[in-house]
């Protein structure tokens, strides 16, 4: 053939490379296939991949501290926990501004709760101080007020701090008015005041939907004006609007009563002097933190490094370990109980096996809650099983067995609930093992046991593998049953995750616990692949 003798790539009849032609020919098919799976793909992306990615992100995400206290975090750069001293004035000054803004935005309690996970007491400290920062600032507002009534006039402030064009537009405008623009000159001359005013103006526009041109500014702006003026703000050369009032204020401020913020904070709460508290803020000031993961393995990120929690507080490692060994036990129990049933299913005549299959599937038609509750009725100390044992004289009335609200209860109930997930893959694999293998083995002289162990069992291993992976992965994340029959020592890590999601609202920790669980499953899956080989898993 001439094709075989030519050099270079094989060409199609029209002279184009054969590979390109083939790709073109297959493109339509590929597109159609993609279109067919697109709904599922999108569904999975939205409901499965995205939540997992979000969970992984949440487990390390920590920008609440740097978002809420940006100035404080910056000021804390110069402070070392190891120095053993309370941070200096600049840090408290920054904290005052941050906390004032956070309090206006009502974000300080959220931050307090977040930091409270790491250091108890911070929550109430922030809540308390958040109420009092307003008072701290009002000291200055009142004094400026006393100096000149104009300092309480919103329009005056707006004209002073706002861009002249903006102010012209904003005056008398409805609702929020045009977007606030700062007066560049003021920004140079009174930087902190300008910043505080801008925050106020933006907040007023965005949150309250009011026009800053007619709103009285926050006391924070007065406090900042005081700070700028005492720092020697360059207003001498200023001749624009309000120059007169500013000059007068500059002359007056040295006489103001002005406690430092540090003093003010300490007056609110002694804890502001706590090195631990500041150390915690600094330790969690990064955008990302390993803190949640450390918590999830009973460690803690403290100002002086990573510490192991005392044993009375360490719960998670124990829970992880318990979740894994109990899941393994449950998996093993389902193999033990499910194997003979699957064998019968695969080998009984059609009519009998159909009936048996219905019995196996029956639990699927019953609510999980009903089944779990049924186990409560059966297993409790005044329950059916204990009653029968006592009635039969096997147990004395005082010696009733404790079979529920402990690990045994969880194992029994979950083995029952997960049994079909073992039986079905086992059955589907066993159904494909031809009976002639067993006959061949017997004809070759093998006893029933040898035939089972050396011929039948190895061929059913893919079913055991598939069933085990299914049951184990379901078990490791099980939640309802352990919560209902597990008591305190029969609960799983997922119950703890649920607690953090719905009760303690520590989603970061819940995400970290979930991520570790996910990683554990993946590691086990990998180990399984190495030992048994994932090719050896068959669902039918």
């Amino acid at each position, binding site marked *: 053939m001439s094709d075989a003798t030519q050099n270079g790539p094989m060409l199609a009849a029209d002279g184009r490379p054969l590979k390109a032609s083939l790709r073109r020919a297959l493109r339509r098919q590929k597109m159609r296939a993609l279109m067919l799976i697109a709904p599922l793909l999108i569904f999975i992306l939205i409901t499965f991949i995205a939540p997992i990615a979000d969970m992984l992100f949440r487990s390390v995400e920590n920008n609440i501290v740097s978002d809420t206290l940006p100035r404080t975090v910056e000021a804390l750069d110069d402070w070392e926990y190891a120095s053993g001293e309370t941070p200096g004035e600049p840090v408290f000054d920054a904290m005052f501004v941050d906390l004032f803004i956070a309090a206006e935005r009502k974000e300080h309690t959220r931050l307090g709760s977040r930091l409270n996970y790491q250091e108890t007491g911070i929550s109430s400290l922030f809540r308390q101080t958040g109420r009092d920062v307003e008072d701290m600032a009002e000291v200055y507002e009142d004094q400026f007020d006393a100096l000149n009534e104009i300092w309480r006039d919103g329009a005056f402030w707006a004209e002073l701090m706002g861009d002249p064009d903006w102010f012209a537009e904003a005056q008398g405008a409805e609702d929020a008015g045009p977007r606030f623009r700062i007066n560049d000159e003021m920004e140079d001359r009174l930087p902190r005041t300008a910043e505080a005013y801008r925050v106020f103006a933006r907040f007023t526009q965005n949150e309250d939907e009011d026009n800053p041109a007619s709103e009285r500014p926050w006391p924070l702006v007065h406090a900042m004006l005081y700070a700028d003026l005492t720092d020697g703000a360059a207003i001498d050369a200023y001749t624009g609007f309000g120059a007169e009032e500013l000059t007068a204020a500059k002359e007056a401020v040295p006489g103001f009563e002005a406690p430092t913020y540090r003093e003010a904070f300490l007056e609110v709460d002694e804890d502001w002097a706590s090195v631990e508290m500041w150390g915690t803020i600094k330790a969690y000031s990064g955008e990302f933190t390993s803190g949640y993961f450390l918590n999830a393995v009973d460690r803690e990120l403290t100002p002086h490094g990573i510490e192991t929690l005392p044993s009375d507080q360490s719960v998670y490692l124990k829970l992880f370990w318990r979740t894994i060994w109990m899941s393994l036990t449950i998996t093993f129990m389902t193999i033990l109980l499910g194997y003979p049933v699957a064998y019968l299913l695969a080998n009984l005549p059609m009519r009998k096996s159909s009936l048996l299959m219905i019995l196996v599937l029956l639990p699927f038609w019953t609510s999980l809650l009903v089944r779990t509750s049924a186990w409560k009725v059966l297993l409790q100390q005044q329950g059916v099983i204990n009653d029968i044992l006592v009635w039969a004289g096997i147990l004395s009335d005082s010696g009733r067995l404790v079979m529920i609200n402990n690990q045994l209860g969880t194992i029994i109930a979950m083995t029952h609930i997960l049994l079909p997930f073992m039986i079905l893959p086992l059955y589907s694999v066993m159904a494909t093992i*031809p009976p*002639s293998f067993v*006959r*061949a083995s*017997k*004809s*070759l002289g093998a006893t029933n046991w*040898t035939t089972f162990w050396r011929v039948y069992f190895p*061929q059913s291993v893919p079913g055991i593998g598939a069933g085990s992976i299914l049951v184990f992965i379901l078990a490791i994340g099980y939640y309802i049953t352990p919560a209902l029959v597990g008591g305190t020592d029969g609960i799983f890590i997922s119950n703890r995750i649920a607690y953090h999601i719905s009760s303690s609202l520590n989603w970061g920790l819940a995400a970290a616990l979930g991520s570790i669980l996910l990683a554990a499953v993946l590691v086990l899956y990998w180990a399984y692949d190495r030992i048994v080989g994932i090719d050896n898993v068959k669902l039918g």
Partner: protein
Amino acid sequence: MANSDTNDGFVVFDRVQKSYDGENLVVKDLNLSIGRGEFLTMLGPSGSGKTTCLMMLAGFETATHGDILLGGQPINNIPPHKRGIGMVFQNYALFPHMTVGENLSFPLEVRKIAKSDREAKVKRALDMVQMGSFINRRPAQLSGGQQQRIALARALVFEPELVLMDEPLGALDKQLREHMQFEITRLAHDLGITTVYVTHDQTEALTMSDRVAVFDDGRIQQLDPPDVLYEEPKNSFVAQFIGENNTLEGVVKEMRGDVCTVELDGGEIIDAKPVNVAEAGQRTKVSIRPERVEYNKERLQEGAHTLKAEVLEFIYMGDIFRTRLRVAGNEEFVIKTRNAPDQVKLQRGQQIEIGWLPGDCRALDA
């Protein structure tokens, strides 16, 4: 070559019956004696009971009534793994999770044979089927024919005296099947093993066996060496089932010793050899093999009856010509003629006269 003359009754079915549901008998009163070293084929259409007989012999089914004896001992109550019977299955039943070597070693291991002996025996068995170099392969890596050889080697490796084969060549293509037929008979005869072979392929049965038991409706219809079976079928089922056969229906007019006169349904009178017709007036099916029909008048025996025939179809098949005729109202009457230089090629629509030796024309039950 063993045959019925030297039959020492190595395997005996004594009035064996088998029923699965307690209502219908799958095997009805089976009596069969197989000699040591004999190659016996159970041939029959599906549902005729042949496989059930094999399974009873292997021990996978129990006889409802009667005894099965192996080497003089009744084996009804011996479990299959203690019978020491080699078996080759239709789908080979090679264990997919074991290599070829492990598959062959398996029957030796369960017999607790020492490792060195095992290796030697496995190697010998593999060499016997020319598969020595495949010892470390898995069954899935082998072709159908190769798997078949391994299955054969596995059934033979523990040196059983009796080997059962359940349609072992059914899944192979024609050429390979013919080759394996030869291999299996060669091995069976070389090793002197008694073989019971089940098939529904009559060519296979004829070419391989010492004797063939034709099964139908749970009974052995005829048990004879292949040549007897083909040339002297005892009833119309066997005549139909073995080889190609032309049937003409009619009524026996007269019995004259080993010749009878039959009046066909179309009114023609022919002579035939009575096989299982007893008296005049009985309905009969007259059976003639296609290759025994002659249309060249010079070759016809003096005094033989001839019939008029019309050529409906002439098929050139290389070595033979196959001609379909209308004879006495039967449009499926086929004759086969050898492709010899002087042979006449018949034309469609041609009117001819055909005839045969009365001895080749057998009057069977209707």
